[in-house]
């Protein structure tokens, strides 16, 4: 097990280097100039422009800029936002809880609906239920997030008036954030109605962000269940006269969940990607929207460091999932080590 962990950790270093190259390179591949983007409509004089280029080191060779950036990151210096002048790390941790809160709810939504949907589809293979569920999953997977979000807002918030349009909590609730998680902070502040408001604000963004993972989990659960249900031990269990519920719940599902757990782990990356659009549509003050705004502003410091931090977090979560996976399933541990 220890060797496996060491092996997995050893992979982290080249991955991290790859991420820094990507995050540093991608933002520079986008056409546009950070200084002009930040100077607004009015532009900037040639002298001022030249001074700022020198100040930010944009006149240095690209490799030198990269190594300067790496040097700063190694020292834990993630720099200041070119737009707001605030430290990137400070902004990140102010906004990250909002993204985590949304992502957790979206994942719960995806798991709670996705696994039963996959099981039903597998059990009723070939039936109209299977076709319907998997067809819906395919539609969910294919739906553009931006369009889906706006559609839900216009229908549920605009037309029916059931849900709030955007934001994290009703604007009448005002309390200083303690944890950054609105649900927890509203309770700490002694505002149970604020908690309800925060919960209502989560409904639509959760559905939008959770739709793709839901579809993926449902499809993965279905195929894993179908594979397991063809195994000898399941046939034996059925032959022994066990009830259908016991065969599926106790014997088939437990083994089928192993690849599903890995799929769920991989959805963390999907959720982070999806959060970028979901947060923009719902004015959700998380890191997704922050990164999008920064890309528009060509705020190199935020984009390259923000992406790096997000990538590291996603990588760590996947690492933990892999370790748990190995822990749960001894065969994997033995094979891998």
């Amino acid at each position, binding site marked *: 097990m220890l060797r496996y962990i060491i092996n997995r950790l050893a992979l982290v270093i080249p991955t991290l280097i790859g991420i820094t190259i990507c995050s540093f390179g991608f933002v520079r591949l986008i*056409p546009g100039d950070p200084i002009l983007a930040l100077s607004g409509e009015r532009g*900037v*004089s040639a002298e*001022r422009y030249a001074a*700022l280029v020198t100040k930010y080191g944009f006149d240095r060779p690209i490799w030198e800029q990269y190594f300067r950036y790496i040097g700063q990151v190694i020292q834990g210096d993630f720099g200041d936002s070119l737009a707001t002048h605030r430290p990137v790390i400070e902004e990140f941790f102010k906004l990250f809880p909002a993204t985590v809160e949304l992502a957790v709810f979206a994942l719960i939504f995806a798991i709670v609906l996705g696994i039963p949907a996959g099981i039903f589809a597998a059990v009723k293979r070939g039936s109209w239920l299977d076709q319907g569920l998997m067809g819906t999953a395919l539609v969910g997977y294919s739906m553009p997030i931006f369009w889906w979000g*706006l559609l839900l807002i216009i229908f549920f918030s605009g037309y029916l008036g059931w849900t709030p349009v955007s*934001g994290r909590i009703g604007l009448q609730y005002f309390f200083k954030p303690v944890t950054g998680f609105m649900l927890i902070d509203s309770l700490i502040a002694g505002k149970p109605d604020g908690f309800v408001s925060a919960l209502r604000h989560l409904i639509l963004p959760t559905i939008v962000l959770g739709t793709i993972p839901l579809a993926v989990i449902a499809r993965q659960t279905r195929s894993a269940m179908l594979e397991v249900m063809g195994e000898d031990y399941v046939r034996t269990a059925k032959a022994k006269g066990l009830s259908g519920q016991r065969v599926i719940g106790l014997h088939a599902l437990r083994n089928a969940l192993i690849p599903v757990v890995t799929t769920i782990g991989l959805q963390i990356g999907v959720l982070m990607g999806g959060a970028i659009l979901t947060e923009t549509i719902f*004015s959700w003050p998380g890191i997704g*929207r922050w990164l999008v705004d920064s890309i528009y502003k060509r705020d190199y410091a935020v984009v390259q460091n923000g992406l790096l931090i997000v990538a590291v977090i996603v990588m760590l979560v996947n690492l933990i999932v892999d370790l748990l996976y190995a822990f749960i399933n001894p065969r994997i541990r033995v094979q891998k080590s």
Partner: protein
Amino acid sequence: MKLMKSLLAATAIIALAAGAAQAKQLIYCSEASPKHFDPAMATGGNDFDASSRTIYNRLVEFKHGETAIEPGLADSWEISEDGLEYTFHLHPGTKFHTTDYFTPTRDLNADDVVFSFERQFKQDNPFNAYLADSQYEYYEAMAMPSYIKEVVKVDDLTVKIVLNTPNSPMLANLGMDFASIVSKEYADQLAASGNTADFAAKPIGTGPFQYVDYQLDSVIRYSAFPDYFKGKVALDDLIFAITPDTTARTQRLLAGECDIMSYPNPTDIASLKENPDLVVMDQAGLNIGYMSYNTTVAPTDDVEVRKALSMAINKPALVEALFGAGNAEPAKNLIPPTMWSYNTATPEQEYNPEKAKEILAAKGVTEIELWASDRARSYNPSFARSAEIIQQDWAAVGVKATINTVEWTQYRIDGAKSDRPGAFQIGWGGDNGDPDNFFAVLFGAAAIGTQNYSIWNNAEFEELIKQGVLETDPAKRAEIYTKAQEVMTREEPAFLMAHSTIYMPMSKKVIGYTMDPLAMHRFDNVDVAE
């Protein structure tokens, strides 16, 4: 019966008390997060809305809904005969905000005014570079370093701004956001405690609202300043609900989550106007969308070619297709009709494709580059769409236009290059309501390489805009700028497209909101119905 009466009376008293205690709150759905709250370093309209127009005041202010100025922190002022000295008399007893992070010990005085300007140009001022990348872009862009010689305290309530050369737009410039007056006492306190960065994060001003809280990218909260020198405003609380997506902003207004919103989609205007709970205010924007011909590169270096190209465009049809009916006015001058010195005598642009075709054929013009960018602006909602329409009009007169689409920031770099060929679509929104802010900034020779995308250097025009800055008599200035418009019409350095209308949808409970020609969003004169 007696008991019943007593109960009713008690209920009425409680209801009255509850009504009286209910705070008047206005929720404004804004379009973007502010960079910070230091107006001298800000450049975006949303930054100014969140800082200078709510928290701060200036020596002079723009009148609500106008570009004329009125007294601000200065009750009165005198300008010396040579136009080099501006002496301002400050309003006595003006208080700074008292918050949980700062308690002022004195009222506003000349030290604050001197500090507010000096920090923008004196490098030894501790607040000149208090943030890592401090930049005073507007101070520089308005050429203040070349005009302002010094800012002098005469006495506690008198301050003098001394210029190097006369500058007629100076008063209008002093009404701009960068000229907001900050507290020197607060700055000194932050410098002493080593928390200078708080100057941009936790603002202190004299304005109608004081800062309460900012949840990053989400909500800004203000409360009315009870000791505001012009008297407490009608609102008690002002909230900026930051909602970047236009559709979401509109839906929030429709759902009653906001009382007022900025920048609606032009396509939503008709349906918003039909909503019985809303009012949609509109005003001619102080802006211009235009297309600069490079006057130094063939074929557009020939004035006849430029005129023929403009003549080939069906301007009213273009404007209607681009903005929608009634959402913009075709332009015939660079400045909009609401601005003083607008030349009403300028003829409408002639639309004559046959004549244009003849001229262009005679000049041998068969191809041209037409520039477009990916960003929607208030003066042009789609450069791509306008480019396509113009391309069709030019094709009809035998000129094949190649549309060159470039990302917005790179677009402006490429457009400003002196060897850039063809016609370049761009536009402008005024800063201070002074014609100089259009003519000199967009077509002055000094702006070649930055904002003069026509690379146009016309001696007569240059002389006129130079006179316009030096002249102090408004009537004479108007005459000068009228002539400048005649020169532009004659020389056609650009095809002047449209002045767009600005819309502001709001709930019917919002009372007293005034549309602003400078696209500012001010709430100090706003009330909400109970």
